[in-house]
């Protein structure tokens, strides 16, 4: 009998630590272990902290075998330093070029090489609403335009509810803004500014309009919003005290743990109307450089397993995200996710989120501008000015 | 001006009764000196009068009012600490004036009192220094200064001059006496210096083991000590003691193997009993060193003290001290019978 091969050990660093997330990542771990690997878990809550730990461990020569990043430009620097192994053969075998959404490929493929294995797609700007609240306010249908949305908010307000459940934290403000931007400004302007960094577009009336409409939403938040965590905002919707929350698909978890079911107690829609753009975000794993053959094998095995349809289905069902590939069993997904997959099929509606387009520091600088604009009585012109300035300052 | 009256006072420190059932009456305006061996409880007594130690029994009345449990500041007292206890972060001037500033004495008055104290204590040039920059004697003077600016009813001094040189000491002694006269304050003063005790005290209390042995005028205490302890404790050197018996066969004589002294004129408190075992006490200055002295004894040690000398005679296995004003050689002495003391050998009490 052939000797039992030693399992391929792989330390995997990630930031999925909550109960639901743990259940999700366990799918990958189990699949990996079944495929002859040995998953060693390295969870560190908080994306920043997890990434900091990863980078320090790379510096210290004790890199994990795989590490989670957002599907974004976050790891571009590591790629540039030549500190990642590429996955070209895994990608080739998995036919990534053809099955992955364009936006994702743009983020993980550098100079023609694949440097990350994407594992999920998040849509950070779902509209979650309480059906009870909508009913109380007399709203019959989901809004089809931004103006209609505003009218709904007014109705909610009149009904004595908090129209917009909101947490006044910078990143939540950014999600809200990007949603408004994509929906009101349209994909073209969105890309012109975020992708092409077109300063003239920043000064355009269209962008000013985006800013004005964004700021108008503030009147529909409650005084307790600043500093509030996203889940507390979700709780407002869950309990029917607030009408809508614009938040990533992870918010579904809160409804679920409260025993609510999509389509029954709450509803979700990704934007206004059938052509509404769909902002794409996601998570991916990178594989720090190593020459050790068994580690490289472990890395390849990991990449293969995590992107395989089976684990993808199990993972997505628990994570609330949508799979990176279309050939996945959808039966276990919830209503919102299924809606998402449907939309994703239309490539024209996919819009990369800003992290995929911008370096983290520029992204952060823009957040600063927006949060100031949101929280102060600044004119949109001043915000445009600051926006442009930040783009100039954060480009080397 | 206030009298101090202590009744049945008991003070515990740690596990031991330092003072047990002590009585003391100090008249208003009186100057009382406490004397006693190291560790006998003098400081403890002063601190109790000041209200710094809690009495576990007994009472302390000051100026007629029961102060046993009153706050120190309400007792109208000032205290010079043996350990000085200066405020380390304040300069000399602030150390002295702090109490006054607190109780709202007018500025001018404070300045006056501090200036007077500083002059009296020769602290003028040091007013701006912190205690850490002072010598031992200077610190002690500051501690005195801090007390006297208070012009309290009762002053308590705990060895206030122990670190000073003879000259300054003589001066300050005189100043304190003046202060006493001027303020009419009651003063209770602990010292080890018999000269101080003798010159300052209206009455002095000799303490031992937390109890008062004798409380009388300095002269009375010196001349007629109440018991053997007082007799030997006071004087420098203390009384010479001779053990013997009373012989009443012919007048009253003190006798032992080597000595016989006619003590008929001694003011016995009770009639002298024949054969009673007694101790005869003779002050060194009453040992009359003369060539024709009855007792021949070789001089074993001469201590020159400047103004006088102490001759130690080896006399049948014990040392007999004699004070002589000049350079006479010694070798023989007689005892002057006028100022002797007689004690019961068993009780050690004066006869």
């Amino acid at each position, binding site marked *: 009998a052939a000797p039992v091969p030693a399992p391929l050990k792989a330390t995997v660093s990630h930031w999925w630590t909550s109960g639901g997330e743990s259940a999700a990542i366990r799918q990958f771990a189990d699949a990996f272990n079944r495929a002859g690997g040995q998953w060693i878990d390295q969870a560190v809550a908080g994306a920043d902290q997890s990434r900091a730990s990863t980078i320090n461990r790379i510096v210290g020569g004790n890199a994990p075998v795989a590490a989670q990043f957002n599907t974004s430009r976050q790891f571009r620097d590591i790629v540039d330093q030549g500190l990642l192994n590429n996955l070209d053969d895994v990608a080739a075998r998995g036919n990534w070029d053809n099955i992955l959404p364009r936006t994702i490929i743009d983020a993980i493929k550098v100079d023609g090489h694949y440097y990350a294995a994407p594992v999920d797609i998040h849509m950070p700007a779902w509209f979650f609403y309480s059906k009870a609240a909508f009913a109380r306010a007399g709203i019959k249908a989901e809004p089809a335009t931004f103006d209609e949305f505003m009218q709904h908010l007014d109705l909610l307000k009149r009904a004595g509810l908090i129209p917009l459940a909101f947490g006044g934290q910078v990143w939540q403000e950014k999600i809200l803004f990007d949603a408004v931007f994509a929906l009101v400004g349209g994909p073209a302007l969105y890309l012109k500014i975020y992708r092409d960094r077109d300063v003239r577009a920043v000064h355009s009336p269209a962008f000013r309009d985006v800013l004005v409409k964004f700021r108008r939403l503030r009147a529909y938040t409650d005084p307790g919003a600043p500093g509030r965590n996203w889940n507390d905002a979700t709780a407002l919707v869950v309990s029917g005290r607030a009408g809508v929350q614009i938040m990533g698909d992870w918010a579904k978890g809160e409804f679920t743990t409260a025993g609510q079911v999509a389509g029954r107690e709450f509803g979700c829609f990704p934007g206004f109307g059938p052509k509404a753009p769909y902002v794409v975000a996601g998570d991916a794993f990178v594989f720090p450089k190593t020459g050790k053959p068994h580690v490289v094998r472990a890395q390849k095995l990991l990449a293969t397993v995590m992107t395989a349809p089976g684990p993808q289905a199990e993972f997505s069902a628990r994570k609330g995200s949508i799979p990176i590939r279309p050939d996945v069993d959808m039966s276990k997904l919830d209503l919102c996710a299924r809606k998402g997959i449907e939309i994703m099929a239309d490539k024209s509606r996919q819009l990369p989120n800003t992290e995929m387009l911008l370096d983290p520091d520029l992204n952060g600088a823009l957040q600063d501008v927006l949060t100031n604009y949101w929280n102060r009585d600044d004119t949109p012109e001043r915000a445009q000015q600051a926006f442009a300035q930040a783009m100039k300052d954060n480009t080397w | 001006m206030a009298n101090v009256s202590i009744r049945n006072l008991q003070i515990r420190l740690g596990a031991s009764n330092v003072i047990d059932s002590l009585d003391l009456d100090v008249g208003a305006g009186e100057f009382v000196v406490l004397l006693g061996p190291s560790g006998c409880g003098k400081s403890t007594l002063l601190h109790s009068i000041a209200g710094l130690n809690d009495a*576990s029994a007994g009472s302390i009345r000051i100026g007629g009012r029961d102060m046993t449990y009153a706050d120190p500041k309400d007792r109208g007292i000032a205290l010079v600490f043996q350990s000085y206890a200066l405020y380390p972060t304040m300069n000399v001037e602030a150390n002295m004036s702090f109490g006054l500033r607190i109780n709202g004495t007018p500025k001018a008055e404070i300045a006056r009192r501090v200036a007077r104290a500083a002059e009296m204590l020769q602290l003028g040039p040091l007013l701006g220094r912190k205690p850490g920059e002072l010598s031992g004697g200077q610190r002690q003077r500051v501690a005195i200064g801090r007390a006297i600016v208070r012009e309290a009813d009762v002053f308590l001094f705990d060895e206030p001059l122990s670190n000073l040189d003879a000259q300054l000491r003589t001066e300050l002694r005189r100043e304190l006496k003046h202060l006493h006269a001027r303020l009419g304050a009651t003063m209770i003063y602990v010292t080890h210096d018999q000269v101080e005790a003798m010159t300052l005290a209206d009455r002095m209390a000799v303490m031992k083991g937390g109890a008062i042995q004798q409380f009388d005028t300095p002269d009375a205490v010196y001349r007629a000590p109440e018991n053997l302890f007082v007799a030997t404790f006071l004087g420098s050197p203390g009384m010479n003691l001779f053990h013997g018996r009373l012989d009443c066969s012919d007048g009253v004589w003190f006798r032992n193997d080597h000595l016989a002294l006619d003590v008929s004129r001694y003011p016995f408190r009770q009639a002298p009993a024949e054969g009673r075992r007694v101790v005869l006490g003779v002050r060194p200055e009453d040992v009359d060193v003369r060539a024709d002295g009855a007792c021949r004894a070789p001089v074993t040690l001469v201590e020159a003290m400047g103004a006088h000398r102490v001759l130690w005679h080896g006399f049948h296995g014990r040392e007999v001290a004699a004070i002589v004003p000049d350079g006479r050689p010694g070798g023989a002495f007689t005892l002057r019978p006028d100022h002797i003391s007689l004690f019961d050998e068993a009780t050690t009490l004066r006869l």
Partner: protein
Amino acid sequence: MKRDCDLAVLPPAARVRPRKPLLTPARLGIYAFLLTAALFFLVPLYVMLVTSVKPMAEIRLGNIFALPLAPTFEPWRNAWQAACTGLECEGIRGGFWNSVKITVPSVLLSIAIGAVNGYALSFWRPRGANALFAVLMIGAFVPGQVLLYPLVRALAAAGLYSSLPGIVLVHLVFGMPMMTLLFRNYYAALPQELFMAARIDGGGFWRIFYSLMLPMSAPVMAVAAIMQVTNIWNDFLLGLVFAGSDNLPMTVQLNNIINTTTGERLYNVNMAATLLTSLVPLALYFFSGRWFVRGIASGAVKG
């Protein structure tokens, strides 16, 4: 003796009277202040405690001060042994011993080093001591995170990265400025004469330190222990970066439980986990009392 007569007129028994009425207005004021302050300090604890025994549904109602309607100790059990911290769902107990392993040597060594430094600086005053101290103080102000990379590099070069000695060393480096400052300033207030006396007695550097200075350092030791135990026990980032996966302290799990960004947040478990984690420092606080002895230099010198 005359005194005997006086004794005769004395009241027969000694009166024993309480020194002061138990509650003077001043005393009342003291207690009033302390209780008010305690209240201010306790409100958040109260909120944490009640939150930790409420089911999530109750928490979502948003009445943070309300007593739990259906108290449950599930969150505590959960926090200790069931909450997910990644793939593992074993609560925070997993890292407990790691935390102990890191904390004990780090605390002991950093206090020891701080004490020796402070002692050397305030009594021996070696040449360049002030410059040394100044650099150390500046070091205290450098944001620790900025030091991460170089430290990682240095430890990796020394082969200590991701090891217990490594993390202990890092804690020593980070703790040194404050510990040194603490002890230096404390010793500066002690009478210099004591040191002189010990020098004359022939005490060398170490002997004076441990025979004389250490016993007099009890109160400041208490503070140092409070600071270091808390800092090191609660440290998360350094442990995460330097301890290596075998030695991850409990706080990494604590952080994993409460600091999740996009997963569901179980506030009750978070609170329970936080309270559980802080039990060790809390115990120390409570038992540090005997170190706060009074008059540590009592009777040392006069003047």
